[in-house]
């Protein structure tokens, strides 16, 4: 039994210790906003925040995530400034990568409230969008920058 704190809620899950957190979030906790894309930490679709830091949830085991504060896209709610900026700029196309993009952007803005284009490109480099929404992602991050509450914690 592993206990996980996801979006400020405690879950006890019956799962082997070395199962990637991604699958625990998706299959056991059934929060499916976190996506499977590659399984090797290359695409960023499974990005979640762990203690405020964005990271691919396929690269951390359930055991390693125990006792840490996990935030998924569902944990942001619906009115986070980054989400609103995403809506304002109409960022998503197919939408599959966007949960990861948004959580990565939230972490970026927490660390760097006024990022430059270069800062954005560097921070978002690990999040692939097959539709190519990168220019809008950049615009949305600039739009959200400096807004109250855009920090790492929802």
């Amino acid at each position, binding site marked *: 039994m592993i206990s996980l704190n996801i979006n400020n809620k405690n879950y006890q899950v019956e799962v082997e210790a070395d199962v990637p957190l991604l699958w625990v979030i998706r299959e056991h906790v059934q929060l499916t906003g976190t996506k499977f894309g590659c399984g090797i930490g290359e695409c960023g679709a499974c990005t979640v925040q762990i203690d405020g830091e964005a990271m691919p949830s396929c690269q951390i085991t359930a055991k390693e995530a125990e006792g840490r504060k996990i935030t998924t896209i569902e944990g942001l*709610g619906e009115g986070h400034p980054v989400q609103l900026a995403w809506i304002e700029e109409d960022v998503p196309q197919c939408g599959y990568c966007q949960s990861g993009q948004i959580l990565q952007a939230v972490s970026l803005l927490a660390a760097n409230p006024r990022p430059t284009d270069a800062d954005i490109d560097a921070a978002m480099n690990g999040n692939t969008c097959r539709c190519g929404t990168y220019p809008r992602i950049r615009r949305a991050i600039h739009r959200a920058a400096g807004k109250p509450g855009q920090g790492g914690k929802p």
Partner: protein
Amino acid sequence: MSWIINLSRREFCKSGALLGGGLVLGIHLPAGLAAAQEAKTAAPIIPNAFIRIAPDDTVTIIINKSEMGQGVYTSLPMLVAEELEADWQKIRIEPAPVDPVYNHTQWGGIMGTGGSTSVRSSWEQLSKAGAAARIMLEQAAAAVWNVDAQSCRAENGFVVHSDGKRRLSFGALAEKAAQLAVPQDVAVKQAKDFKVLGTVKKRLDTPEKTNGKALFALDVMVPGMLTAVVARPPVFGGTVVSVDDTAARKVAGVKDVVRIDRGVAVVADHFPAAERGRQALNIVWDEGALAGLDSSIQLQQYRETAATPGAVAAQRGDFTAGLARAAQKIEAEYHLPYLAHAPMEPLNCVADVRPDGCEIWVGTQLQTTDRNAAAAITGLPPEKVILHTTYLGGGFGRRAVGDSHFVSEAVQISKAVQAPVKVIWTREDDIRGGYYRPAALHALVAGLGADGMPVAMRHRIVSQSIVKGTPFEGGLMKNGIDDTAVEGASDSPYAVADFLAEYHMAPAGVPVLWWRSVGHSHTAFVKESFIDELAHAARQDPYEYRRKLLAGHPRLLAVLDRAARKASWGKASVPGAFQGIAVHESFGSFIAQVAEVSVDKKGGVKVHRVVCTIWANHL
């Protein structure tokens, strides 16, 4: 669309996609809709299979195209809203079930999405549906007020009377309107009267794509569902000789190991267990006829083939005679690789086969084909197979497969284990799983006149056929020419008097499929690269060179000129960068690009800027 998760089947059926409905313009009511409407008497109403208006004024547009990022959940409602005079804020969307009424208007009897056809093929159908519904609402209001329908006019979700005093909302009129005969021959607006079309509407699917609620097939959870992965042959066309699944069955969580036509499925309670079970399988494969396939050998074979005449795809004048008269001869060869679609959402499908029916949740581009494949596997009549179209995490053609393989796998496994099953492809399964853009060899020869302009050109293409042996062969293959292999080359707009385009169908083997712009993905590159070679040989500016060859193609010229102007052609904005230009037409859109590129001392290429112009207007 988040309603599927964690609902019991009973709840699901009550709240599913099949609620409500109405009349169809001259066509029958879909069986699913009729049954659901019967079951729920308070069902909202109105005029046809594409529009439903509820008492609360929401207007639901039933979408028969798959949303994979291209925006059909917004563009198609815009077509309806324009004619319906709906309040855009009240528009909702719902994916259509499989029914003939939702068939593609140009694809002869199937529902599907692809070929850059969604807006074009739906335009008239949805415009007229919207107009018919609006007329019925106006007639309903006229009846309520006992006035002439001519004095009633729909605007922004209401019908208003010309006296300026009376108005009723669409929701208030919907039930009455649904009793009226559907007008059959309705007029639609002229472009000058458009209020919605031509404006920028925010995508209706954006909010749920920013909060994790958008439901992709990979997110579907059905009670009692198991998860499967499939061990597929290491070589395309390979088959299983024997399986030792002893170790796989011992993996915690593994429930079953099942042989299916495409390999061996490991079925488990969760994905990680299924994947571990697959790794523990011991399979002896017969690698089959392609065991020795080698890219370099294939390229050599393609080259040898390209040295011989192929089937004529297009011909003007006499290429041989033209070339003989030319002052200068230019030759070039282009080799394009196989390409994987690699949608962000790996392929997957949920199937629940029961004795009395089958339900499928899938992000597909070919609903009818997949539904029928499931019917064939289960032995059920097609109407007992309910297919739910979810969002697609990218399609690019990969989810439009004539053999329905990624649906068939799930149906076969669910049938075998008698439980709902989700088949998940890993990224590795996806990339090595075939169905690629075909590799192609292009061999080109051109003769230039004394003025440097091309007088003769031959464009020969060697590639596997995407459509040969598929249900699409009849429509897309003629006289040995796969249109998807030569499109963009055989119809080159460049004015070359003696022109010949030829096609060699390479031997089948590696599974190939339409990939994004299909043939244009290689022909545009080759056509434009070669014209640049000719301009270079002629020592002419590649932009002006193209202009001279495009007389009579005003749209191509328009986008070309605009791209050149916007990019300040001739003056790269980045010091040390070079500019390149290209222009092409595909699927009724005209596009030109100017790229600014630099090459470093090690040969590394950096693209600094691309200026792109497109003519994608209503033609």
